[in-house]
């Protein structure tokens, strides 16, 4: 998919204008809900400032906090595993499951396991994996990936969901009533919960001081999963750490407001020990994060709390859809993480951005998103990945721009010749600007010429 690059996949998505507008409006609605919540707090900018400072401090001292977290977690009776990459992570999870003869896993939302492609790996090894977040379950049934990190099925209309449920859950034909479909999903998932051997959750925050983790959801599916079977595995990236319990107050306030425009998530659950007679494991994953940690330019991308606000506000994401990015995480944050992760594969992503800077200013932890995308572009050029024709054109332009006389002559010729050319030549297929837009009318004189005349 990503071989096509963002521009072509975006064009494909946008060619269905009606659907594109529907998608744009659905996400803008979430952005507006967020605005209502954040604008009603006088201290919003102060909260962002605090969140930024806590994350900056934590990343500067990450090794210390990770070790403190590990120590406290073990003291709480939780087992800790370290995974350097996706493969190790997947093997650790499989190993834990196999040791317990667990073949049925219920999962709540975790973008990390998407990043590691855990589901197909476990399925290949005979484990039944059920995503229990409603949106995740919908895309799982359709054999699709989430198209958004908080709203995984945002690309689907209720009619699409109705058809999917009709096929897999045998709901009534052509019934796409949301309440009816939600009830059907609940019944279906309830059976899966009751029959499960183990649960897996993501981690929103890992508190170093207490050795506990916090999971925020709206559906309570993580809670049900982590409470029913005796085995609970929680997977987290190394950047999920916050130092103290009191720091959590800042993050729970900014997370839900930014993500869905709610003052707080419906369920904010603290896990500090295994259930009675049960086992709890935490898998801490690097998978390229320490490489970002070592790169000053992109370091702040590790501050991300995965609220999705930058995705909702991005005018390109809203009109191109999550799949146009060809990376696990779409939108501005995905474009910088994707470029850091594998720039050769994702070299179109830093350019899937008009540098409007809305993302940077909506971000509750002040990740300098558009500035990172600007810098990634330099890496693309340095690695020779920029389109050769474009590079050549800019080099020629730069040459002209060092010689004002050449610029003046070039400009003069263009202003004389362009109006004389027939439309078919001016608007040939090479004129990408002119495909859907008129060019400005070429004036007789440049400003410089008028300025000289006026001075005389």
């Amino acid at each position: 998919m990503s071989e096509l690059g963002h521009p072509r996949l975006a064009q494909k998505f946008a060619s269905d204008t009606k659907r594109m507008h529907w998608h744009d409006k659905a996400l803008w609605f979430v952005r507006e809900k967020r605005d209502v919540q954040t604008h009603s707090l006088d201290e919003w900018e102060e909260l962002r400032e605090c969140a930024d400072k806590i994350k900056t401090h934590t990343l500067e001292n990450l090794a210390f906090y990770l070790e403190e977290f590990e120590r406290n977690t073990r003291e709480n009776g939780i087992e800790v595993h370290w995974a350097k990459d996706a493969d190790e992570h997947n093997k650790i999870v499989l190993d834990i499951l196999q040791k317990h003869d667990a073949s049925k896993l219920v999962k709540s939302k975790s973008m990390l396991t998407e990043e590691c492609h855990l589901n197909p790996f476990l399925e290949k090894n005979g484990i039944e994996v059920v995503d229990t977040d409603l949106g995740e379950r919908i895309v799982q049934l359709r054999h699709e990936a989430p198209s958004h990190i908080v709203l995984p099925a945002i690309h689907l209309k209720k009619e699409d969901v109705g058809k999917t449920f009709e096929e897999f859950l045998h709901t009534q034909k052509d019934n796409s009533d949301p309440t009816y479909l939600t009830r059907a999903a609940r019944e279906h998932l309830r059976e899966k919960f009751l029959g499960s051997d183990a649960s897996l959750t993501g981690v929103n925050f890992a508190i170093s001081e207490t050795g506990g983790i916090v999971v925020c959801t709206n559906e309570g599916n993580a809670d049900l999963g982590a409470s029913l079977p005796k085995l609970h595995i929680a997977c987290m990236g190394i950047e999920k750490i916050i130092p103290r319990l009191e720091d959590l107050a800042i993050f729970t306030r900014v997370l839900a407001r930014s993500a869905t425009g709610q003052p707080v998530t419906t369920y904010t659950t603290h896990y500090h020990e295994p259930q009675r007679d049960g086992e709890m494991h935490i898998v801490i994953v690097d998978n390229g994060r320490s490489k970002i940690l070592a790169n000053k330019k992109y370091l702040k991308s590790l501050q991300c709390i995965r609220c999705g606000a930058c995705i909702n506000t991005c005018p390109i994401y809203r009109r191109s859809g999550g799949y146009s990015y060809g990376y696990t995480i779409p939108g501005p944050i995905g474009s910088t993480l994707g470029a850091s992760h594998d720039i050769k594969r994702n070299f179109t992503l830093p350019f899937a951005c008009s540098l409007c800077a809305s993302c940077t200013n909506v971000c509750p932890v002040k990740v300098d998103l558009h500035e990172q995308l600007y810098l990634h572009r330099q890496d693309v050029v340095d690695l020779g990945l920029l389109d050769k024709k474009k590079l050549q054109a800019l080099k020629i332009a730069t040459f002209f721009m060092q010689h004002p006389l050449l610029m003046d002559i070039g400009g003069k010729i263009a202003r004389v010749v362009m109006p004389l050319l027939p439309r078919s030549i001016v608007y040939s297929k090479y004129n990408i600007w002119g495909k859907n837009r008129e060019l400005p009318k070429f004036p007789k004189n440049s400003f410089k010429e008028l300025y000289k005349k006026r001075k005389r």
Partner: protein
Amino acid sequence: MKIGLFIPCFMNELYPQASMDTLKILESFGLDVEYPMEQTCCGQPQANTGCAHEASILAKRFLQIFKKYDYIVAPSGSCVSMVRYNYAQFLEGMDGFEHIKNNTFELIEFIHDIIKPDSLHVSFPHKVSIHNSCHAHRELGLASMSEKSVTPFSKIKDILEMVDGISFATLQRNDECCGFGGTFAVTEEAMSIAMGRDRVADHIRSGSEYITGVDMSCLMHMQGIIEREKLPIQTIYIAQILARGLK
């Protein structure tokens, strides 16, 4: 006080009248304004495409040409933003860099913050809507952005409110990007067009007669769509409103 007039390369070639209006406004305040003839481009197209080497050549050139002026004023938010925020990578520590960084202004910002006029003797009896171009808006801070929780303000509106007979239309999305984005307009043509169409539609829906703003590049993009689709609205660069009647 000597002002260096910095006219973006494409405006010099394609928008001589809008550029001339910028000069006229500055002169109407009794300022000593000079247009240095050897100027070409600030290097933003190169920088935004990742061509740091090429951009740095043009940044150094810009510094040498403009460092002798007390103020540098340009009819463009995004070119000024390039100087103020993106030149550091190329010019940090060089003689005169701090000076141009602190004293390069977008036209409206300069009038609002430095000249601070009490009144303007100009009339424009039309309903206008303001296009908040991203770099002027979010980088230079010409108006409060919708993302932030701050007291609303707009330097652009403050200045336009001094114009006789003008009225303002309200947009549904006050500061969404129009999709110009420099080379983005071509690299991501489909996105650029979709964004531009949506922006123009919002302005039309507002009942506005003219889309105005501080960046001719965004207006050029939207005007291109308006003309191709024969839409019932026009764009007008802000200096063309403010300089009416000036000689």
